[in-house]
């Protein structure tokens, strides 16, 4: 590998406008992840967590799932990751059916889930180690990703010696080090303070642009969703389903200007907020009896 991270997959930046779809600023339109008719039901509780969820994530694209808590967005992400199995539906990645965990997709967890018994560099090298990459090679590759997430000099720190923000950087590097096509992120900044959170949102955009990875991101922050995404999927509750799909029409790269101050940003926020408010009042038993 060259010093550049995965140059082969750096995404093209040509603008393409779809006939029936939204204008994208960054990614190509080739769908990487296709989810069709996904449903999940817990038989014991006779409770439908997800119902008929379908969407696509283009290669190199950034799609965010947003919704009130308990709407099943984490379950959706875990099913796509292969950590849980769906009751019905189909998931394909790059045209191939994707059942169970696989090398072409990894996950970044809300609570980082770093191994406390491994140093930062060994945490990052974990996936490579399981793939049988030689010790030399995986250390040098892990070091590249360590520096990609801005943690040069911290390779021998244990997670317990790093701040939350730094731990999540390690989590991101660990997921990217295996060079997945699809990165699943489960409220990755949810456990961080507001400042660290905003800082990492910008960092994440740069990192994703460089690694050329497609992202499926789960959050309950509207601003985070708008700032990061090409597409936002709004989920409703009981059962969890997609109620709205919205393209974010803000030019990239967004860290070069104050994207959060754009009129489009405010408009999109208002639109998403009214959509979510509807879902919240539907979901909240104190507002409407079931």
């Amino acid at each position, binding site marked *: 590998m060259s010093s550049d991270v995965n140059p082969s997959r750096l995404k093209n930046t040509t603008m393409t406008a779809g006939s029936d779809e939204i204008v994208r600023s960054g990614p190509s339109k080739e769908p990487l992840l296709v989810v069709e008719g996904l449903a999940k039901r817990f038989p014991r509780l006779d409770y439908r967590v997800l119902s008929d969820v379908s969407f696509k994530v283009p290669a190199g694209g950034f799609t965010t799932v947003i919704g009130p808590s308990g709407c099943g967005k984490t379950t959706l992400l875990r099913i796509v990751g*292969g950590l849980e199995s769906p009751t019905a539906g189909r998931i394909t990645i790059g045209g191939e059916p994707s059942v169970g*965990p696989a090398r072409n997709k990894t996950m970044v967890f809300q609570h980082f889930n770093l191994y406390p018994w*491994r140093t930062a560099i060994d945490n990052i090298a*974990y996936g490579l*180690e*399981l793939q049988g990459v030689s010790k030399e090679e995986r250390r040098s590759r892990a070091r590249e990703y360590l520096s990609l997430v801005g943690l040069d000099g911290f390779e021998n720190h*244990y997670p*317990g010696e790093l701040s939350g923000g730094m731990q999540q950087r390690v989590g991101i590097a660990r997921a990217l080090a295996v060079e997945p096509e699809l990165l699943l992120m489960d409220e990755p900044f949810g456990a961080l303070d507001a400042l660290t959170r905003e800082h990492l949102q910008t960092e994440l955009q740069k990192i994703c642009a460089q690694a050329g990875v497609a992202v499926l991101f789960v959050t309950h922050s509207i601003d985070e969703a708008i700032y990061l995404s090409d597409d936002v999927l709004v989920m409703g509750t009981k059962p969890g389903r997609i109620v709205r799909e919205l393209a974010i029409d803000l030019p990239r790269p967004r860290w070069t200007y104050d994207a959060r101050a754009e009129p489009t940003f405010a408009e999109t926020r208002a639109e998403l907020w009214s959509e979510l408010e509807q879902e919240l009042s539907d979901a909240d038993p104190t507002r409407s009896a079931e």
Partner: protein
Amino acid sequence: MTQDLAQSEIALDHTRANEKRSDRRALLLRILSIVVVLILWEIIGRQNEVFLSYPLAVLQAAWEVLVVDNELLVAFGETLHGYALGYVAAMILGTMLGYLMGYFKGLDVALGPYVNALYATPRIALIPLLVLWVGIGFGMRFTIVILSAVFPIIITVRDGARSVADEFLDVARIFVAGGWRTWRTTILPGSLPYVFSALRIGAQRSLIGILVAEILAALSGTGRIIQDYGQFFQTDRLLVPIFAIGFFSIFMTGALNFIQRRVTPWERR
């Protein structure tokens, strides 16, 4: 961020300095407490020689049994021989079974009743039976040590294997680790604190087991000389093997703690 780190390191230095200071104070207090107790014992013990004996008499007795008669080392050697081999066997057998039972539900269901029943049965009740089965020599020591240590080890290691957080298992799964690699990279390191607890409990239980067996079945060894000195009211001598056992037990726990700190450098840094 770098500033964050600098600050947290300063904070860390402060706590380390504080810890050192309180460590020193604790040590001083401990030594003082030992000295006071020894002096009190000497004063009271001199009036009750058979009941209590006293530190200087015990020291002299130690010299006699260790150097003049050379009884203690021979007896202790015999005890240690059975103890060490039995403990190592229990350690290997116990951790292996513990992990297997923690991992394979079926095995736990099948073996659980035996393990729980034998764990609940006071092992010393088995000694008369063991006299029949393995005699009163090395076989008895070896067997009673295994029986004393292996069940608590199995149960603690099994619980440790189960205690590894789902969050860590998710990581192993998402990176497509198989069964063996999940164990080696996730379950084993995640359960090490339990394994060391198991080994400490095992070390204690086997020491109790072997001494009781030596006293009860009239074997040779440390238990036997404790019995002999007791019967002849040689209280000063009697206390020598008791202290030796005590020190040995402290040594075992200390050694296991030391190894644990070396093997788990991420804890308490």
